[in-house]
């Protein structure tokens, strides 16, 4: 297992946002995380990525305990993430934003520039490389966050609703991008409310509710789980399924 | 009939601006004294005859510069006065640190520089050839205090414990240090020393410390802002020292005297200047100054005025503006008591440029005004006990 989380708990004052979560992420897989709003998915991500120090529990990454390490050491170890609420360096250009990521593995400016250009090309941002990042809309910023994270050449990429706000065509393109990233050997954990994305990408899905895991399994198993339908999917399931079938078919 | 330009560098802005502006007015008055023929000023140097009499009555023109309270600005302005304004000599620059940097420029350019008021000892220890100082320095002041206090002791006053309250910039700490040394060497016990940061927001703890220990003599070495706070705090905390001495500066500021002088009746001070009784020359000069500025002439301003007169006297005797001639004339300066307006015993420079006849008077607040009470020859009233407020 690349990531092994055991009993991860995060409390804010009296409120427990993540409650004793055990989760394994297998190397080379795409793991999906779904759940109602406020279920604790982003909070759990923040624990994984080192933004929060969990109130309790252990997280092992490639066999090494990482709970409580700084976010920067997480990045150096090979864990990259995007933020649900984008944190763009708005005063820098799009290209320079990606450069910042690329510098993690490339000391020299020329090398970093080359690596960043490749990432920009791959994520379809090359055309906007010279624009100020502040001119991007939410969706653009999210893509920039993926590019930036990718530029750190991670082992695992944590995507927190990075595909939200895209049109159907763009979602297809983004799914292709994520597949492509995955094929290049990067393990992916993805949080997304667009079921189409989860269904067509994830090998394994974990469902959060009130900070706990209520269901786990293949996308098919999970979406068939009445608890999940009740808490999360509602009637839209059928539609989503259909669409996913169309997409992959 | 030409004009002779003299530069004057003073703190015309910043924290010491109040004093600087007063000095500026005094120097302007000195120039009036030189340029006009004022017969009613007796033997005062440069009073008789209009302008520089040895130079066909050439008029003196003073060019003021603001040192902004910083050594670098003082230096820039000295340079400007010398190279742009082509002044024949410079007086200034109030704060010792600025006098130090400004006079260094004058030294390099070979232009005479006279400080009427900066007291730091090291100024005359630099081996400069173009630097002169008219004012008494800290050791002179300490000596005056000691002579005065010895008399008080002889008159039956108990002075066994002394407290010194001083602000801790250059002025306060150097005075405090030389007082401590001189007192120690003369059998006076400094039992308390209370240095504090100048321009403080509150002085009550210091006053309470004094009240707690109640020494026989309290000496304040402070600027105006703090002097006002001390006067007010002593009243509100109901503290009247047995004997209180204030070293010049804040307690001598006309603004202080005018506005809170009534809270420190009987405070002893030092001054190189005391207006004296009507009819005397200092009184006449004070009247002229008052007419011009609306304030009394205080000690630093009087010293500035005197410094300017000394400089003009030298230029006049030099008979020209060649620096070397002025330098020689300054070295040959020998003004007598009747020729000066401050309480010096005369003006005569040693080889380091220090006025060896510099001296100070002791004054005391009598009914809201300082009057000279020592030395006996120049006293206009007897010493009384400290009263404070009524």
């Amino acid at each position, binding site marked *: 297992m690349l990531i092994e989380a055991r009993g991860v708990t995060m409390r804010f004052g009296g409120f427990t946002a993540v409650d004793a979560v055990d989760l394994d992420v297998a190397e080379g897989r795409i793991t999906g995380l779904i759940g109602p709003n406020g279920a604790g998915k982003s909070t759990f991500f923040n624990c994984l990525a080192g933004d929060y120090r969990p109130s309790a529990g252990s997280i092992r990454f490639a066999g090494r305990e990482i709970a409580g390490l700084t976010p920067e050491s997480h990045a150096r170890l090979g864990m990259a993430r995007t933020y649900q609420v984008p944190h763009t360096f708005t005063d820098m250009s799009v290209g320079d934003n990606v450069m910042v990521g690329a510098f993690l593995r490339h000391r020299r400016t020329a090398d970093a520039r080359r690596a960043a250009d490749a990432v920009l090309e791959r994520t379809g941002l090359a055309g906007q490389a010279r624009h100020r990042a502040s001119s991007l809309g939410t969706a653009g910023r999210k893509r920039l966050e993926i590019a930036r994270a990718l530029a750190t050449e991670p082992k695992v990429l944590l995507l927190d609703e990075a595909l939200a706000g895209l049109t159907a065509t763009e979602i297809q393109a983004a799914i292709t991008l994520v597949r492509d990233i995955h094929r290049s050997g990067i393990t992916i954990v993805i949080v997304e409310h667009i079921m189409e994305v989860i269904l067509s990408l994830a090998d394994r899905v974990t469902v959060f509710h009130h900070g706990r895991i209520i269901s786990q399994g293949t996308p098919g198993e999970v979406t068939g789980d009445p608890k999940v339908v009740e808490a999360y999917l509602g009637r839209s399931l059928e539609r989503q399924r259909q669409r996913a079938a169309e997409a992959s078919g | 009939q030409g004009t002779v330009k003299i530069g004057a560098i003073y703190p015309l*802005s*910043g*924290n010491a*601006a*109040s004093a*600087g*502006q007063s000095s500026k007015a005094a120097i302007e008055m000195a120039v009036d004294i030189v340029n006009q023929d004022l017969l009613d000023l007796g033997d005062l140097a440069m009073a008789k005859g209009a302008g520089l009499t040895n130079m066909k009555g050439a008029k003196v023109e003073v060019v003021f510069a603001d040192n902004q309270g910083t050594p670098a600005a003082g230096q820039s302005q000295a340079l400007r006065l010398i190279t742009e304004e082509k002044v024949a000599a410079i007086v200034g620059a109030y704060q010792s640190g600025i006098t130090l940097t400004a006079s260094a420029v004058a030294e390099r350019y070979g232009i005479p520089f006279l400080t009427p008021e900066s007291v730091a000892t090291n100024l005359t220890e630099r081996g400069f050839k173009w630097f002169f100082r008219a004012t008494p320095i800290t050791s002179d002041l300490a000596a005056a205090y000691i002579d005065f206090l010895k008399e008080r002791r002889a008159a039956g006053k108990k002075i066994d414990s002394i407290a010194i309250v001083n602000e*801790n910039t250059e002025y306060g700490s150097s005075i405090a240090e030389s007082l401590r040394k001189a007192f120690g060497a003369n059998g006076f016990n400094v039992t308390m020393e*209370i*240095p*504090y*940061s100048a*321009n*403080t*927001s*509150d*002085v*009550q*703890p*210091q006053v*309470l*410390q004094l*009240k*707690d220990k109640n020494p026989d003599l309290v000496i304040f070495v402070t600027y*105006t*802002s703090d002097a*006002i*706070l001390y006067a*007010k705090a002593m*009243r*509100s*905390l*109901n503290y009247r020292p047995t004997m209180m001495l204030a070293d010049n500066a804040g307690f001598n*500021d006309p*603004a*202080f005297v005018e*506005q*809170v002088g009534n*809270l420190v009746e009987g405070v002893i001070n030092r001054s190189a200047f005391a207006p004296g009784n009507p009819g005397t020359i200092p009184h006449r000069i004070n009247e002229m100054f008052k007419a011009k500025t609306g304030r009394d002439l205080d000690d630093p301003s009087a010293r500035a005025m005197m410094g300017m007169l000394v400089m003009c006297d030298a230029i006049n005797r030099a008979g020209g503006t060649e620096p070397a001639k002025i330098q020689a004339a300054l070295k040959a300066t020998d003004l007598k008591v009747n020729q000066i307006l401050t309480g010096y015993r005369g003006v005569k420079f040693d080889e380091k440029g220090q006025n060896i006849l510099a001296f100070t008077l002791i004054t005391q607040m009598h009914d809201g005004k300082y009057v000279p009470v020592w030395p006996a020859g120049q006293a206009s009233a007897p010493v009384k006990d400290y009263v404070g407020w009524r």
Partner: protein
Amino acid sequence: MSPILLQVIVGGLLLGAVYALFSSGLTLIWGMMNVVNFAHGDFVMLAMYVAFWTWAIIGGGPLLFTPLAAFALAVLGVVVYFGVVKPVMGGPMLAQMLGTFGLALFLRYSAFWAFTANFRTLPEDMIPGSFVVGGVRFEAAKVVAGIVALLLTIGLHLLLTKTRLGSRMLAVSEDRQAAMLMGIRPDRMQAIAWALAAGATGVAGALIATFFYVSPTVGETLAVIAFVVVSLGGFGSVPGALVAGLLIGVIESLSAFWIGAVYKDVLVYALFLVVLWVRPQGLFGKL
């Protein structure tokens, strides 16, 4: 406890109240509006002059000149908002510092130019006398200032946290555009905030003038402490400023009395740094 020590502590508390009073306007502008007003000390200075000149020209006492100073400063606050702050708010934070620093010099030396560098004081009997309770002397002027400081800070705190107006002002400072979407007129809110802050500063200046001296540079003397008070208390926390003011007042007094007056500021600054080391958001601030 000896009466002298008690007196030191009482003096410190009253001094602290003055600090809090002095800082109240700064907290509002710095903490709430997120604008560093380098000219705050000079606002106080102007208020002191308003008090002084009112007394010198018309006469009357604090009951006359305090409201006058509050009004004059409130007007100044509004003018400064529209003339200086609003244009620089679009720029980086440094632009605000630049603007208010320029303003500080401008105000300080305009006062210097108009009123000269001479020190002035109001007569001793503006808020006359002092009274003795349990061997401790209370100076009436400072007690009044202290009480007003308390009322003013409580009032400002309630206004900011409990009223619609406070919430709107905060909204404007958080996100001007979003506030406009709510139908809030940002300029009006900001102008009100500046008027309130400067008005409070006016009250502070007028009352401080009753026991302090007035000079063009007097603002500088107190400003650094005000900045420390506001940050020690936690930006945006009005009660924080009150507590921090009192704390600093007492510490200054005690350390001046016991350790030596030179070191009282050293102690205050050191304490401030230690507090920030332990609580990076100040005593009452939110992260």
